[in-house]
């Protein structure tokens, strides 16, 4: 079968998976095994596309053309490939984990949950392979809507309120800011295709371009640039696998991925650099980055703290994009991968803690490592990776971002990165320290012995933790692969 | 004569204004229909005033038409014949509805019916 067809199949598999899940809802074992099978199949499909990209051949499919310059089309380029691999790969682990979690916590509406889950992945792949802004936009919205039921899963008022904020902010920013930007873009250039070197610089004045940049960057609510970050914490009402999906795999990564795509393929680095607003956004990102970290420090609820940590980590990538140097872009691309693994590990652990020990607050975790050594160990790895300590994957992305900052003569941003690293340490390590070094506060009910989360949960988080470690060594090829965007293999 | 030649139009405007006023202000459904009637009659006057020709007769041939014989313009008359029938049609339908409203609500005052609708 041709690669074009394969590409469509790869995107379609999760959708089919959703339908199958919905149909096989009556028998949950069948359903769950089918889902994991589908996830694996999807990953294989995406993986099988890799070779054709590696040998540099362009792979594009045009589904429908509504108007000249407006079409639903897919194409593979390195960045998208990386994102797709991360998404579909982690999908497997997340679904395995989700099964364990949902059963462990006896959640209701599991079928709806898993179906929407698959749709979300479908949307993520659509974003990854989108050949033009319109296609990306469509899947972006699909992603927003399909994750609403996941966030609102608990169904109580709090969940609903959180979900409304979530959806409201995402849809609002995308329709209120991103869509107008697209309309103007099309009005001025007659196309929305992603072209290397960008489409704007020739026929859009710098003034208009600067405004467009603002519209795009704040319009991509999923990148959680302040002041549009509120949706992320309020989405914390969701079950943990969802948080894992939202904060590590699908949603937020889709956001920053879009940021990168827009910066590279709509604006083009040179044009981007020449806009006054790119500096502005850079500072906003820097601010978000630090402010979010400081907020995270005050949060005592583990998931909330992780949420704000995510907000800050996303700004790394936005900042990298705005630095508009090849190195920083590559660093951003890498950070998508590294942060994905690190953060998903952390959330898996948080979930495991909740399922096994029903603990959500950090101060409750004293001595927890005695009960759940594996989980806490994985947590440590994940934390270190997010902090960016070698020998873990997180190191490389930060390293490249700093190089990029130097390369773009924004040395002050290096300082920003360093400060935030310190802050990362300050808010990510305490839980681990408490868990390992302090002794349980409530000696009474703590009987000795291991009380880990069910295997379904334990295995994925172990794997991702190991992943963070492995990535440290395989970072270079990925880096090179992303580098091919700019023709030069660094 | 010059301005007096506009007297018909002024009266038509006056009738129009009176009719509209009744339709807007009156709360009684039947009274509104009357206002509507006046309003429409005003328009009849507008059209018919157009058809008059100084020294002309009604648009009916009596005997053989002589040269230069002046006739009133027949077209507006045709239009207004039509419009009159529209008028009676609307009036009768409106009255019928008003009667039913009285039966269902026990009143033909808009204030009352609106209050009852808001309650339900």
């Amino acid at each position, binding site marked *: 079968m041709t690669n074009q067809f394969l590409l469509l199949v790869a995107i379609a598999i999760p959708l089919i998976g959703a339908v199958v899940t919905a149909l096989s809802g009556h028998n949950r074992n069948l359903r769950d095994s089918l889902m994991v099978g589908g996830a694996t199949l999807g990953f294989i499909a995406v993986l099988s596309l890799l070779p054709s990209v590696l040998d540099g051949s362009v792979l594009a499919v045009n589904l*429908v053309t*509504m108007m000249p310059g407006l079409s639903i089309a897919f194409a593979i380029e390195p960045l998208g490939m990386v994102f797709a691999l991360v998404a579909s790969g982690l999908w497997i682990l997340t679904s395995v984990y989700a099964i364990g979690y949902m059963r462990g916590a006896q959640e209701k509406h599991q079928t709806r949950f898993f179906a929407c889950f698959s749709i979300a992945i479908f949307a993520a792949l659509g974003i990854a392979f989108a050949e033009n802004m319109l296609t990306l936009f469509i899947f972006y*919205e699909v992603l927003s809507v399909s994750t609403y039921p996941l966030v*609102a899963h608990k169904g109580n008022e709090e969940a609903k309120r959180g979900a409304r904020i979530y959806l409201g902010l995402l849809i609002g920013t995308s329709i*209120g800011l991103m869509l107008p930007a697209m309309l*103007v873009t099309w009005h001025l250039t007659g196309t929305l295709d992603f072209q290397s070197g960008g489409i704007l610089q020739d026929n859009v004045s710098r003034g208009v371009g600067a405004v467009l940049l603002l519209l795009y960057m704040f319009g991509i609510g999923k990148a959680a640039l302040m002041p549009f970050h509120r949706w992320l914490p309020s989405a914390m009402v969701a079950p943990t696998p969802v948080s894992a999906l939202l904060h590590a795999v699908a949603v937020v990564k889709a956001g920053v991925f879009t940021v990168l795509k827009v910066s590279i393929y709509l604006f083009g680095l040179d044009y981007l650099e020449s806009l006054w607003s790119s500096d502005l956004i850079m500072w906003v990102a820097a601010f978000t980055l630090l402010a979010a970290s400081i907020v995270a420090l005050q949060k005592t609820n583990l998931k909330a703290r992780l949420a704000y940590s995510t907000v800050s980590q996303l700004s790394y990538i936005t900042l990298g994009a705005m630095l508009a140097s090849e190195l920083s872009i590559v660093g951003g691309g890498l950070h998508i991968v590294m942060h994905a693994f690190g953060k998903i590990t952390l959330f898996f652990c948080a979930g495991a803690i909740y399922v096994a020990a029903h603990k959500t607050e950090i101060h409750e975790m004293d001595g927890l490592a005695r009960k759940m050594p594996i989980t806490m160990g994985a947590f440590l790895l994940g934390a270190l990776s997010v902090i960016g300590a070698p020998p873990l994957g997180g190191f490389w992305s930060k390293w490249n971002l700093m190089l990029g900052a130097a390369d773009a003569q924004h040395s002050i941003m290096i300082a920003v990165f360093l400060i935030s690293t310190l802050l990362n340490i300050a808010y990510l390590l305490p839980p681990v320290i408490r868990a390992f070094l302090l002794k349980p506060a409530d000696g009474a009910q703590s009987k000795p012995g291991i009380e880990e989360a069910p295997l379904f949960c334990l295995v994925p988080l172990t794997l991702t933790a190991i992943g963070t470690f492995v990535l440290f060594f395989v970072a270079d090829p990925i880096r090179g692969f992303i580098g091919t965007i700019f023709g030069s293999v660094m | 004569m010059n301005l007096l030649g506009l007297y018909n139009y002024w009266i038509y405007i006056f009738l129009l204004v009176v009719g509209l006023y009744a339709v807007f202000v009156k709360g009684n459904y039947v009274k509104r229909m009357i206002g509507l009637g006046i309003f429409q009659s005003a*328009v009849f006057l507008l059209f018919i005033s157009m058809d008059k020709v100084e020294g002309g007769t009604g648009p009916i041939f009596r005997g053989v038409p002589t040269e230069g014989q002046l006739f009133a313009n027949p077209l507006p008359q045709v239009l207004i014949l*039509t419009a009159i029938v529209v008028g009676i049609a609307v009036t009768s339908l409106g009255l019928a509805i008003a009667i039913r409203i009285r039966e*269902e609500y026990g009143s033909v005052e808009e204030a009352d019916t609106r209050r009852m609708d808001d309650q339900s």
Partner: protein
Amino acid sequence: MMTLYDQLPVLVVVLPLFLAPLVATLPSRGKLPWLVATITTALTFAISISLVTQVLETGSLTYLLGNWPIPFGIGLYIGPFSAMMALIISGASLAGLIVSASAMDNEVPAEHQSLLYSCWLLAMSGLIGIVITGDAFNVFVFMEISSLASYVMVANGPTRQGLTASFKYLVTGTMGATFYLIGVGYLYMMTGTLNMADMAVRLEDVSDTLPVIVAGGFLILGLAMKAALFPMHAWMPNAYQFAPSAVAVFFAACSTKVALYVMLRFQFQILTPNLGNHLELLNALIMTLSVIGFIAGSLIAIFSDNLKRLLGYSSVAQLGYIVLAISLGTSAGISAAIIHTFNHAIMKAALFAAVAAMVLRFGSSKIEDLAGVGKQMPLTMLGFALAGLSLIGVPLTAGFISKWYLIQAVLESGTLGILLTLLILTSSLMAVIYIWKVIEIAYFQPARQELPPGRREAPAPVLIVLWALVLANFWFGIDPELVLSLARSEAVNLMGVGK
């Protein structure tokens, strides 16, 4: 010797007009009146399809009634937009009739149905008559046929509010028609003709005189009343809410748009060339009204607790878009207006068909009564949701094409364009909110009342109509060529410049 093919332009209105009185005389019991009405409408629909193809192939059609030369006799004129409107009207009527097959019996007593269906045919032929005629006064006559028939149908609604709604409709409608007549009167006074094309020519001698300006004002005002343009909209949500559900399907799709069609004809064919610098004034006025219209409409829709009412106000908003496009006075504006006229017809018809089904099952269109409908009537609610997406303007739906062209047309007018674009998107966001409000209640809330297992999903005919319309929404969202070409050629007709 004329063939049937040559007679089609007049048959499209004469056929239903000829059969309507017969329907009134049929025995009320049984489905006979419905059957005759439906078959007639189906034929009319077929004729309008062939008219569309004719227009696309050979350009505009004309037909002399009584074979008298225009402007002395009455001539029919069928341009691209007219043909499309005829298609919309007959199609909407057909959809409504199919829905009414199962939805009418529990809303209108059997002994009235023959009269009702007779009125239905009269309304349809009246509306078609308006869009295919080339004579200004003839428009008034057919306007009255359709309006009277509509008042009757609304008055026959299931609740007593139908009567008050109908009366309100009657007063506003009559005032609108009379204002229109006054406008025509002044144009006639200054030109001595009633044929629109002829008027356009002869107005050049007297262009920009006071009576002509007044005429323009009154025409627009009267038609705005008929079209429920804000703030003359009050009658419309009531009429839609309290009319029989099936009738609402028919009206929502086409009735007010016909007035907009006439407005567009006059605006561009007659007024634009002959108002001189007063045109900007007029356009500015219309534009302001339309903008207030779609913002206010969407806003009220968000807060209305009844689904039919919500959709009614959303129609106020959507018509605002069309009027905005008209007020731009550019050929891009014309295209946008025409495109949205068509697309809004199919989306609203779909939505009201879904609502008709829900009312049929739940006996209420209050939104909170419809909680959990998503589980009990999955197909219906899914159709509603998809049509709702089209209403919002999500890509791949017809609504997206409309919005896209509208905004592109708006953007042509510089800085003002940016502002308008933002306003349009704001109101789209409001649309997201009010559609979402319904979806959330329908899917994520426990059912208020459990339907008996046998009567859960909507009856087959309704579902067929609903889904046909929903698919149409996607079809014309993915391949809008037909609509676009009609719109373009109409724009060429009216402005002389293609886009």
